[in-house]
């Protein structure tokens, strides 16, 4: 293999490039990314960066030794297609000549899902999603004290932004269609603990009600007499309520960036091979095409914790899995991974509390508090399925949590 193209220049792509070099690949290594920014860390975008405690330079994922990797950066270029050619591949780009290579790492990640807009109208100003640095800069500028923020979607991104916005003196209303915020990833019982925390801190939490549509209006700061109702001024709920809003944050999940692979022959993880469910990979990152691997948020594989094919979007997966994908691409044995690699893991910081979660929650899993006390927000909870631990959640208990997380890795070792 002489030339490898890594498509995607965020954590997974950068980690793949580093891993390829660490594994001894000495050929050309081209990293293509559609954002103009050097690789940066996304988790702080909803937390310290949004709160103004971190600046752009703090987000950098680059280290001085990266210069030794001899990467050919193609930032600000969007991949639009993958085609087989001469026993290798061509990566087609939106505004540049295609890149020829004989190995491909697909690491194009995912983007924020948007609310549908009314036919014939564009997106309203004041409506935000949060995925990129540019998104975060725009949202940070909008979250001025006393602004009215409506968060649509009570998942982690919405919950973290609600927490940060409260800190910034913003009035926050959180709308979640399910009966309990965060019940999807954490289950009803422990999701409710966090929902209650938001209420205690002053967030108005509205659950069990879908959003009907966004309310357009005139921008009071816009040019006088422009007559356009292109700014969001509120959110209509399905039960008829109208929530006034200066800013709306939509946190309703993500869509894998896989459209560019249409017609490439790469098979998706949907029931009929749809790429909308992510790129189907083996545990080692192999796709159905030779010389093409995928990793990070755009890839889906069977999870023994979930008992089904899942597209995990966890930061640690994007950090650690690329080393497996790199080895697969180079035909090398899987490298040594950390003791807990392979166990889905994520964290969340809200209101100064640090939540850690490992494993996978299924509806019906039985929760047991094994340490501490839920009411003090300092505890470890274990989720069991047919008596067997499948997940663990901890707040303020890193040591006990860590033992359970390692136990999950051991119990579920193949």
């Amino acid at each position, binding site marked *: 293999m002489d030339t490898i193209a890594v498509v995607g220049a965020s*954590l997974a792509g950068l*980690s793949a490039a580093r891993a390829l070099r660490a594994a001894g690949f000495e050929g050309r290594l081209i990293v293509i990314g559609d954002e103009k920014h050097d690789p940066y*860390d996304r988790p702080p975008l909803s937390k310290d960066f949004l709160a103004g405690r971190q600046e752009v330079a703090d987000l950098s*994922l680059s*280290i001085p030794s990266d210069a030794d990797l001899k990467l050919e950066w193609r930032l600000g270029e969007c991949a639009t297609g993958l085609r087989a050619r001469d026993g290798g591949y061509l990566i087609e780009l939106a505004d540049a000549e295609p890149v020829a290579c004989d190995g491909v790492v697909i690491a194009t990640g995912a983007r924020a899902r948007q609310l549908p807009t009314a036919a014939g109208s564009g997106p309203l100003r004041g409506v935000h999603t949060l995925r990129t640095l540019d998104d975060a800069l725009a949202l940070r500028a909008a979250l001025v004290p006393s602004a009215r923020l409506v968060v649509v979607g009570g998942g982690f991104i919405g919950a973290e932004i609600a927490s940060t916005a409260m800190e910034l003196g913003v009035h926050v209303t959180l709308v979640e269609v399910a009966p309990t915020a965060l019940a999807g990833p954490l289950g009803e019982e422990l999701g409710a603990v966090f929902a209650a925390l938001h209420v205690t801190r002053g967030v108005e939490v509205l659950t069990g009600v879908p959003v009907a549509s966004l309310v357009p209006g005139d921008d009071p700061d816009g040019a006088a007499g422009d007559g356009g109702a292109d700014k969001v001024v509120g959110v209509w709920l399905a039960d008829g309520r109208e929530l006034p809003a200066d800013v709306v944050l939509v946190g309703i999940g993500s869509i894998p960036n896989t459209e560019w692979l249409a017609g490439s022959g790469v098979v998706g993880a949907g029931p009929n091979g749809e790429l909308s469910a992510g790129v189907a990979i083996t545990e080692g990152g192999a796709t159905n095409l030779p010389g093409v691997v995928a990793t990070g948020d755009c890839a889906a594989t069977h999870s023994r914790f979930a008992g089904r094919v899942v597209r995990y979007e966890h*930061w*640690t997966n994007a*950090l*650690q899995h690329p080393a497996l994908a790199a080895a697969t691409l180079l035909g090398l044995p899987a490298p*040594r991974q*950390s*003791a*807990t690699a392979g166990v889905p893991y994520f*964290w969340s910081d809200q209101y100064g509390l*640090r939540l*850690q979660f490992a494993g996978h929650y299924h509806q019906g899993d039985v929760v047991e508090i094994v340490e501490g006390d839920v009411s003090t927000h300092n505890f470890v909870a274990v989720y069991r399925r047919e008596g067997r631990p499948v997940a663990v959640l901890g707040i303020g208990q*890193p*040591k006990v*949590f*860590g033992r359970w*997380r*390692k136990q999950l890795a051991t119990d579920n070792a193949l």
Partner: protein
Amino acid sequence: MIKVCAVADLPEGEAVRVDLEVPIAVFNVAGDYYAIDDTCTHQDASLADGYLEDDCTVECPLHASCFDLRTGEPTGLPAKEPVRTHSVMVEDGVIFVVPRQG
């Protein structure tokens, strides 16, 4: 020189935190002792709570940064700055640490 604990209280593969002004973590790797700053340079987390790996590194329990216990250097993102290392001494079955100054 600060007393950490008795040798018997720090079995192989385990770590203990010494609560000083700048906390120090002491590790027992197959009978060898290593001491580094306890707080991860990436974000506030205790490395004594982390995972000790076979290659003499510790993985931060929060965001998976890895540090070499011998040098304090990070061996993997997200940490980019090293932790300080400190000398460890064993005398009469007791482990002591000598905090590095500055």
